[in-house]
């Protein structure tokens, strides 16, 4: 009954429309039939107005024929022509697509119209569709300045970078806050990632706070940006939603190596003496380690009002996904419940979100390197092999003992003979109490308690049939086995007061202040190797030091006449990481917005429907330098006792030695200072909207893992606040409603959104001006390809300059003697290219027509380079010999003709490749049957393709390599998916 359509009201009350001005009363409610206090009610074209009381009730004098305007932040404004009725109840719909859209900011909400900082907000309707396994993929490519790079393994985590990150040695991960609970960025290793346990179907919105004016309220961990995730909550209407999806995964691309026949001719040509080592088989090892995999995903959610008083939502999800790399699997079961009751005339609102997730994984080792190298003329199976019937290289001694021959191991056997399984149980959620004081209606108190508790275990067993196992002195193979447990817990206590007062008609003040306490705990147990009884017992249990973060924060907002909005915040943060006198940091921010379109000179504009200018400055802190005990106690240091294998032998007896740990009692907060200027605009009655942001960020007291004076500490390198990193960027996002169906299902509706990000980073200063090597590569124990240097972007490639002959072919072993000292050594390396893209773009198109929907997403990165470590470490003819056996190599060797891999060739700029790309992430076609089964039910069927195509010049498997070093990856599969969604 509650959702009486206004339309019917009008009809019913038409006959009594002749009365003069009279009092009308009523209640304003939201879609869940909850009363909305504070709704503005104006009689159009008069100065008569009122607001609803705490129960949503109002009374106003009105004449027939006049129009009442009901407006409230976050809701669609309703205009009702008064027809003389005595009561007029109005239900306001939430704004889904306008400036009044609710946006979550730290410790509160705002609207797009009132935002002063740079915030990207994505609601459910904006999410990327398709095969979404982990929540961050909902926003991949969707927000300017936000990069999400996801791996190819099932349930794989992602590297998320907001505005490129502002740190070097400290974490660049954004702070992720779910329902007010900031997550720990160090996920349990038993789980694929911190977000992999979260069911994407439970998410209502993503709010990405990008500039410091927006993030400073989260001071302590906000330097990498903040992502606020809101989960779906309970409602009063009964709703059921059921989703089913299945996916089929296949390998889209392979690394080019020689085929068996090509390999045979290559060996007979180049290593005629080794022809007898060739086999008779024709094996494509990359085909053998992969498979066509499938996944199923089911989700059901129910919303309703329990016992008529308790708005609730219950959701269950189950996903079972095999990876394309043989044996890998990801299974996740989730249950979440959300309760949102309110008491005492809505004075007390409580929300409880409780989530349980159970994740099971089977990890498959990265055997791509072995698949590339393994001799293609050898078979996968060998019936005479003692190794479970898999072909391996070995010899038999005179006593019959089996001796493995040094060489690559059968990658298929490596996969099949290892069972590396982990499972994680995670419980997380929050309990929030929001109380409005009776004696002071403008004042609310909010307390939020959060808990995120994960425990996981892993069992990693290698079969006794494997050649990779431990070989006892009697010659027998015994595989390998170990187990471990891990658990971690993150608890939160937040409490704050909010004071919100309309000081005058036009001036609104909103002040809040509070306290936040967060504790991180972790512990674990490892068995060590269980299959080797002769070895030292290396079992070990550990408990990490607790990490405590606590903070006092406050924010004040002044809004004047919807035109001028001023916001200022400050947060004082303490971290237990740091030593005495260094624990606290203060992070202020201020920002201002001017709604130009509210000004008279623009009010009448036909073309321009919205224009807002924003400017802000803020400071944020970073203290996350790692999760080891040494990282957590960097300020004080401690003594670490030898593990069983790291003892000192004194008088023939092992003694557990005490090692003082390195410390930096001067370590303190890294601080990012950001200036952001932005413009929000809308044209043609907001059919074309957009946002431009420009920012400059200086990260000062940058954590750098840099040299300390030798002998002064118990290491030669430690985290120090020494350096400055500058980031400049420009972000543009546009959203165009190209065809507007105006709600008519039979007409075409076409929405196109596009975003582009330009980013430029430079290290302005670095500890002692000293270069720092980064970017470890394969091909030499401890080799590095990247460098941090003052005056340059982060992690540029530090390489030798290859010399080419007149025909443009590289001359093997010839590099430019850049310093002219006639010696080619480390001093001749130079900085060349960088892994970060200069420009990233995203595009989403959504079309609806007569029940059909067609969506696609594309992303492009321009100016990102990749070091092809697959080729640099293998594509040389000398690798046709693999220790005692033969080995395959990438066909790229034909381009260089290189015979040998040398320390210099490994670092030649010939292996730095342009990895700019255009990728179609997803295309999906669906059809919705309305009034399916029942009037109120609908059914949507859809099908799509994920990872449709990639256009790139990069010669390797996939140009999207986070960090820019490609030494084989878990390939991102191409996925075909089908799904159904039922709602009623």
């Amino acid at each position, binding site marked *: 009954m509650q959702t009486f359509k206004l339309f019917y009201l009008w009809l019913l009350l038409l006959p009594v429309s002749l009365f003069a001005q009279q009092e009308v009363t009523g209640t304003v409610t939201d879609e869940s039939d909850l009363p909305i206090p504070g709704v503005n009610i104006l009689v159009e074209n008069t100065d008569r107005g009122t607001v609803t009381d705490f129960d949503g009730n109002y009374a106003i004098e009105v004449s027939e024929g006049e129009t009442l305007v009901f407006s409230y932040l976050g809701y669609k404004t309703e205009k009702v022509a008064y027809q003389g009725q005595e009561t007029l109840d109005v239900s306001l719909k939430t704004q889904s697509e306008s400036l009044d859209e609710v946006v979550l900011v730290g410790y509160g909400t705002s609207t797009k119209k009132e935002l002063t900082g740079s915030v990207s907000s994505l609601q459910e309707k904006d999410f990327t569709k398709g095969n979404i396994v982990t929540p961050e993929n909902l926003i991949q490519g969707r927000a300017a300045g936000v990069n999400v790079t996801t791996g190819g393994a099932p349930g794989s985590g992602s590297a998320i970078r907001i505005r490129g990150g502002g740190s070097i040695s400290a974490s660049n991960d954004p702070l992720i806050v779910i329902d007010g609970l900031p997550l720990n960025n160090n996920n349990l290793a038993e789980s694929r990632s911190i977000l992999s346990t979260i069911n994407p179907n439970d998410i209502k919105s993503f709010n990405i706070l990008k500039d410091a004016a927006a993030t400073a309220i989260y001071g302590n961990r906000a330097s990498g940006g903040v992502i606020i995730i809101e989960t779906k909550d309970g409602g009063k209407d009964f709703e059921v939603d059921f989703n089913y999806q299945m996916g089929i995964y296949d390998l889209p691309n392979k690394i080019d190596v020689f085929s068996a026949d090509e390999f045979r001719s290559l060996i007979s040509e180049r290593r005629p003496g080794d022809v007898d080592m060739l086999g008779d088989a024709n094996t494509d090892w990359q085909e053998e380690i992969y498979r066509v995999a499938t996944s199923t995903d089911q989700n059901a959610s129910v919303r309703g009002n329990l016992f008529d008083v308790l708005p609730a939502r219950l959701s269950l999800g189950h996903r079972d996904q095999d990876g394309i790399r043989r044996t890998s699997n990801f299974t996740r079961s989730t249950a979440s419940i959300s309760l949102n009751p309110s008491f005492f005339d809505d004075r007390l609102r409580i929300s409880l979100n409780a989530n349980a997730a159970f994740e099971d994984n089977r990890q498959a080792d990265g055997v791509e390197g072995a698949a590339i190298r393994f001799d293609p003329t050898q078979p996968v199976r060998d019936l005479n092999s003692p190794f479970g019937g898999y072909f391996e290289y070995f010899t038999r001694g005179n006593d019959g003992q089996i001796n493995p021959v040094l060489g690559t191991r059968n990658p298929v056997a490596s996969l099949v003979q290892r069972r590396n399984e982990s499972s994680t149980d995670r419980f997380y959620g929050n309990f929030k109490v929001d109380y409005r004081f009776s004696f002071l209606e403008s004042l609310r108190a909010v307390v939020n308690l959060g808990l995120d508790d994960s425990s996981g275990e892993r069992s990693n067993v290698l079969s006794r049939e494997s050649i990779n196992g431990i070989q006892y002195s009697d010659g027998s193979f015994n595989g390998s086995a170990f187990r471990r447990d891990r658990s971690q817990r993150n608890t939160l206590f937040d409490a704050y007061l909010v004071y919100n007062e309309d000081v005058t008609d036009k001036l609104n003040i909103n002040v809040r202040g509070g306290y936040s306490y967060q504790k991180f705990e972790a512990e674990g147990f490892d068995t060590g190797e269980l299959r080797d009884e002769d070895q030292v017992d290396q079992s070990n249990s550990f408990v990490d030091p607790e990490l405590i973060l606590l903070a006092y924060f406050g924010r004040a907002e002044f809004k004047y006449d919807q035109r001028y909005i001023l916001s200022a915040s400050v947060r004082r943060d303490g971290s237990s990481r740091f030593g005495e006198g260094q624990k606290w940091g203060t992070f202020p921010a201020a920002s201002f917005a001017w709604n130009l379109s509210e000004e008279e000179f623009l009010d009448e504009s036909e073309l321009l429907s919205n224009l807002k200018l924003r400017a802000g400055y803020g400071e944020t802190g970073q203290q996350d330098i790692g999760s080891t005990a040494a990282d957590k106690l960097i300020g004080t240091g401690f003594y670490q006792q030898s593990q069983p294998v790291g003892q*000192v032998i004194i008088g023939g007896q092992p003694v557990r030695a005490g090692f003082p740990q390195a410390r930096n009692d001067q370590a303190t907060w890294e601080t990012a200072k950001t200036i952001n200027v932005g413009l929000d605009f809308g044209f043609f009655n907001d059919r074309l909207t957009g946002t431009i942001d420009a920012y400059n960020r200086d990260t000062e007291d940058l954590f750098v893992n840099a040299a300390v004076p030798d002998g002064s500490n118990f290491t030669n390198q430690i985290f120090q606040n020494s350096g400055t990193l500058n980031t400049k960027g420009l972000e543009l996002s546009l959203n165009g409603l190209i065809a507007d169906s105006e709600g008519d299902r039979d007409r075409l509706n076409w929405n196109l959104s596009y975003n582009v990000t330009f980013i430029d980073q430079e290290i302005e200063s670095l500890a002692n001006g000293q270069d720092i090597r980064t970017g470890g590569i394969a091909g030499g124990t401890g080799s590095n390809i990247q460098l941090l240097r003052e005056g340059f972007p982060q992690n540029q490639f530090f390489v030798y300059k290859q010399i080419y002959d007149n025909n443009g072919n590289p001359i093997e072993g010839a590099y430019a003697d850049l310093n002219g000292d006639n010696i080619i050594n480390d001093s001749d390396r130079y900085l060349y290219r960088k892994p970060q893209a200069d420009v990233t773009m995203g595009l989403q198109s959504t079309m609806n027509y007569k029940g059909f929907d067609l969506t696609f997403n594309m992303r492009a990165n321009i100016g990102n380079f990749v070091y092809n470590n697959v080729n640099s470490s293998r594509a040389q003819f000398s690798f046709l010999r693999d220790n005692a056996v033969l080995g395959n190599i990438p066909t790229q060797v034909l381009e260089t003709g290189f015979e040998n891999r040398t320390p210099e060739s490994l670092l030649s700029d010939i292996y730095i490749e342009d990895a700019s790309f255009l990728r179609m992430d997803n295309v999906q076609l669906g059809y919705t049957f309305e009034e399916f089964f029942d009037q109120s039910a609908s059914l949507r069927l859809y099908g799509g393709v994920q990872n449709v195509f990639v256009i790139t010049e990069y010669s390797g498997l996939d140009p999207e390599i986070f960090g820019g070093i490609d030494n084989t990856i878990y390939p991102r599969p191409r996925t075909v998916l089908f799904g159904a969604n039922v709602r009623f």
Partner: protein
Amino acid sequence: MKTEKKKTLLGLLLLAIALMVSCEDELDQDPQDDDAFTVEDFYEQDSAYIKALGGVYANLNVPSPSGAFASNIEGLDAGTSTYGRSLMNLQTFTTDEAVWSYENDPGIGEVQRSSWTAENVILRGAYGRIMAGVAFANEFLRQSTEDKLNTRGVSDSKKQEVAVMRAEARVLRALSYYHMMDLFGKAPLVTEEDPVGSTQSPEMTRQEVFNFVEEELLASIPELEEPMMNDYGRVDKGVAWMILAKVYLNAEVYTGTPRWADALEYTENVINAGYSLTDNYIDNFRADNDVNGAQNEIIFPIPADENFAQAFGPTTVMTNGAVGSIEQNGDEIGVQPAGWGGAIRLTPQFVSLFDGQEFSGDDRNRIIGANNPERTLEINDIVDQDQGYILEKYTDVRSDGTVGNQLTFSSVDFPMFRLADAYLMYAEAHLRSGSGSQTQAVGYINALRERANGDSSENISSSELTLDFIIDERARELYWESHRRQDLIRFGLFTGSEYIWTLKGNSITGVPTPDFRKLFPIPNASLAANQNLTQNPGY
């Protein structure tokens, strides 16, 4: 009513504030793990001082308290960062004694081709590791002062033990500075008076380092246990004398002023301290060299254990690495049959030291290759592991032929100093100073020869005892024991054109090198972190 509520609210607020402020204490956190201690908790333990001193000793072997795969010295591969490995890389692989096949392992190519720069990671690791030895020793001295012991209520008998330990820590610190002086010349002076953190200490010249090492050793000696009276593996007077003997023997290189007489005196001290040659030369390099008799010859080892003290230290590398690519002789060495696939080979110049009939029965001649037609003497292509001879010196095999179960890590204690070295040093000091006894010098040489040959057939005569003989005989007796670079420098053969070997000067056949390469450069990272340091000439 309203005021009541306000009072309640105020009360709640005050309570809340009190709670919040009390939580601020939680910002002071201590370790929670059973293997981690606050400093004071650590020294509350009964065995605290031997464990703490153990940390100073452990720095010579393991790269970290968790074993071989992590390191408290950064900037290079963890395994490569150990103390013994650093000495091996810089004293052995810079010379004719060995060639490392995997030049793609960062830094080693430059090290063995005399083309190193101040960016070289092996140099950075060595500099950091050796100075960490100073830091660990200083921490022990800081934590074991009279005041600290009194505060902690340490008993008088314990205090006497700690006094000896303090002397040991000072000797270990002097050992580090001796290595700094030998490799890098100069060094920052850091003592227990300096705070832990990032103090930029003043630079000592090579002469000042020399003086510091000499004074510290002389001052410590009276406090030390008598030779061979301390636990095996710990410093005693014999160790301190041996370091002094080394310092004096090389004094001319270090300071320009020879100290041959002092070298002779301290070598004699060592020789007369009760050490004895073990019967079989090779027992010095076996898995049980701590108990098979070699412990009486070894003056100072870096004890290793394949189970309890795992490291990719010198003996792990020189066992696994010695396995030939063709020979696959890991079984004989006590490692996996294929070992590391032929990591270490010999230059033909080194092989030639054993040329001649007189060395055919010499037990020290462990070279393999002459009988293998697939293997060549010359190395023309560094990547081809079939080129160049190999040898078996260190074997992770016990004297009874048994092999431990751990086939990667080594139980062979690295003999940093042993009596045979002292014999050769005596002979050299005698030749150079003219004092001492020629008969004794020849006798010492012949003691080594008789052990190597089983009889006196290859004994030398007094006329054969020359400096040219000494440098070669040192190589034959002491190869792969991290002495060669120091010896070649003392004999004027390391740089310049007088002695050329494969890869010297970054040439496959070898070319002369400039004299500045007698010293390694101060690593750039170290220079940057401590502005008081200055670079060595030539770099």
